[in-house]
């Protein structure tokens, strides 16, 4: 075991959307229950060894801490995805999985006294953190409402479809749901709100149809690829203030700069009071090179989301492919994410706290 990972036993699993996704429930022993406290929207990092190689992935926790249920993640198969398919194919009851305690800045902490209108924009498996969040609101923020705009390809690929239908019925008046399908099947009798994507028109119509009642409106976005950016732009064009918009990317990063390249460099890595000299090849990230050199700075999601590998650039320059875990203030303070950082100078010094 290394930094932060704990062996948890799988209590049970459940197939979702006909085997295209799987929910994995974990038994958190009493001794770890404090460390494994979470807020709806946060995720877990899982570590597996597949074909002799260590791999880690972060998955959103799909239930709310306010539900009488064990901690669980829901993992959708990614075409060709190493870990998502491994989980769907092999993980079963009684297995032991290495899990890092919950983390993440994209969360909704309910407050019994607040009365808010929570707008959720989800596409595909981006529903998972929002599914947890909407339970937190319904169960622990009694004055507040939820409006969910949910995009999928077709009716049969809608994660949590039946559960959402029941919730919408049980909490009529508090939860409103609108389905958007990009490729609805001719043969499906499923009733959806509109065909297409969650684009500017859909968002404007959605808000016009379901305007905020409680005026403290908050907007949460979670979807793949460019969705977050597009939804954020649509909301901004409707004058939604930036501080009310909360987003998390799924799959490819929102503002990932895949064209960012790095040069070969020598890095001085300051970690736990020691300084290590690390050779970085062109195109290698600071984290990759460090791990290859046998030093282990903290890290987790390897996608710029979680912030576990955050360090401070003391000298030299580096560019990041993605940096969702860093605010503009963090950037101004020379913080970098080792898992995304590519050297731009032949020498640099990076310090981990």
């Amino acid at each position, binding site marked *: 075991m290394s930094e932060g990972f704990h062996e948890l036993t799988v209590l049970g699993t459940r197939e979702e959307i006909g085997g295209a996704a799987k929910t994995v429930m974990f038994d958190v022993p009493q001794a770890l229950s404090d460390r494994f406290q979470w807020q709806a929207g946060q995720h877990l990092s899982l570590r597996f060894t597949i074909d002799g190689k260590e791999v880690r992935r972060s998955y959103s926790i799909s239930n709310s801490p306010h539900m009488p249920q064990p901690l669980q993640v829901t993992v959708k198969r990614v075409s060709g995805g190493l870990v998502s398919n491994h989980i769907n194919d092999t993980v079963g009851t009684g297995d032991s999985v290495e899990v890092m305690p919950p983390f993440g800045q994209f969360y909704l902490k309910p407050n019994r006294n*607040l009365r808010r209108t929570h707008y959720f924009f989800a596409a595909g498996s981006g529903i998972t953190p929002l599914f947890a969040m909407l339970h937190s609101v319904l169960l622990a923020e009694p*004055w507040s409402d939820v409006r969910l705009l949910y995009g999928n390809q077709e009716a049969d690929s809608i994660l949590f479809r039946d559960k959402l239908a029941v919730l919408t019925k049980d909490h009529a008046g508090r939860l409103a749901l609108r389905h958007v399908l990009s490729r609805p099947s001719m043969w499906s009798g499923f009733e959806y709100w509109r065909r297409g994507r969650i684009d500017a028109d859909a968002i404007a119509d959605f808000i016009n149809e379901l305007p905020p009642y409680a005026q*403290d409106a908050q907007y949460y976005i979670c979807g793949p690829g460019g969705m977050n950016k597009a939804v954020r732009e649509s909301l901004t064009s409707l004058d939604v203030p930036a501080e009310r918009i909360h987003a998390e990317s799924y799959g490819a990063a929102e503002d990932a700069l895949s064209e960012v390249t790095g040069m070969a460099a020598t890095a001085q890595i300051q970690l736990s009071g020691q300084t290590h000299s690390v050779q970085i090849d062109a195109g290698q990230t600071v984290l990759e090179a460090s791990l290859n050199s046998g030093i282990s700075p903290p890290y987790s999601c390897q996608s710029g989301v979680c912030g576990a590998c955050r360090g401070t650039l003391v000298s030299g320059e580096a560019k990041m492919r993605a940096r969702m875990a860093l605010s503009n203030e963090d950037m101004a303070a020379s913080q970098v994410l080792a898992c995304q950082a590519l050297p731009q100078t032949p020498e640099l010094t990076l310090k981990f706290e």
Partner: protein
Amino acid sequence: MTQNSSAAVFHNLPVDAYTSQDWFDREQRDIFSKTWTYAGFMEDVPESGHYITVQAGLNSIFIVMGRDRRLRAFHNICRHRGTQLIRAVGKTQKALTCPYHDWTYDLEGNLVSVPEEDKEFGQVDKSCLGLKPAAVDIWKGMLWVHPDPDAGSIMTWFGDVDDKLGPHEPERLIEYPEARTSYEVKANWKIVVENYIDVYHLSHLHSNTLQMYDHAKAEYQFVGPHFVFWEPPVSEFAKDQDKKLTMPRVIPEDQSGAWVPMLFPGIGIGASEDAWSTFVITPLAPDLTRVETRTRVADASPWEFTKQSMRSSGFWSSFGLRGKYEAHDASAEDDPMASGDFSKEDIYACEQQQKSLQSPYFEVGPASAGERPVLEHQLVVKRFLEGAS
């Protein structure tokens, strides 16, 4: 026994509280500027770019809806000369402007343009000249504002009475515009509130105007600063009630009755089986108060209303609402005591009450059980003013 009016008390408050400018000013500052103020019905600001202004104690507050359909509230004070002229303009209604010198703000209140800035000012640091925000929310189909942008959740103020006002869903009802009234009462606002929550007077002043409800079975209490009240219909009115309601029913039968809360400060709701009304009390002077009423009814067709009216007319002609006094006892042709209109009866009682407070011989008698809410409201007012000092 004679008394000096400055030493006289009206139960828990000095008589001054009802007559002096000093009390009025303190209430404006410490009650009406520090609580949520009713600002209208939610449909008063129906579309993006629409706006209203409302007086909240000492503050003029401007409410405008953005294109995200969310309301914003600002103090209606241009940051230039302080003029209360702010309005929303432009085709997209994205700009708030003061016509005095055309200073313009965006919907977040940021100052975005100052005409002839270079020539007139050299440079203006616009970043610290944004409109001052206030808080706004919707509750029970009504708009509410608070002068303090950090007032917190409206539910910390109304949460405890949210489920005690009656089963009405005002959002599902529609306004009946003809029922809208606005009138002035020559009395202190607390006299008007005290009249509203005086349970003892219902069987007496309104013996022939509100006798369809069973005042002896009224259930009422203060919940924090707010008063909640319910009373059932008398058996004659309750039996086959659907044939006796003048308009289509809006609440379930098992919750029939009069639901008549008074939210602090001075926001009354009067609701029954077929209507839901607001009764908003605004102090204008120590001895002058404005009352504005608006009514919402079932969202039903005109035919449904006609049908219900025809159906119920027989009951009401025999049940008989009439003046407290018969014509032969009336003091004049327009004697409110012979009007058969409970509002006129109340206004008359309030104004006559206010007059007596000026008398050096004024002395208050014992309060009945049904007048306990009156005494309690006086304590709420007292607590607010003491808490502020």
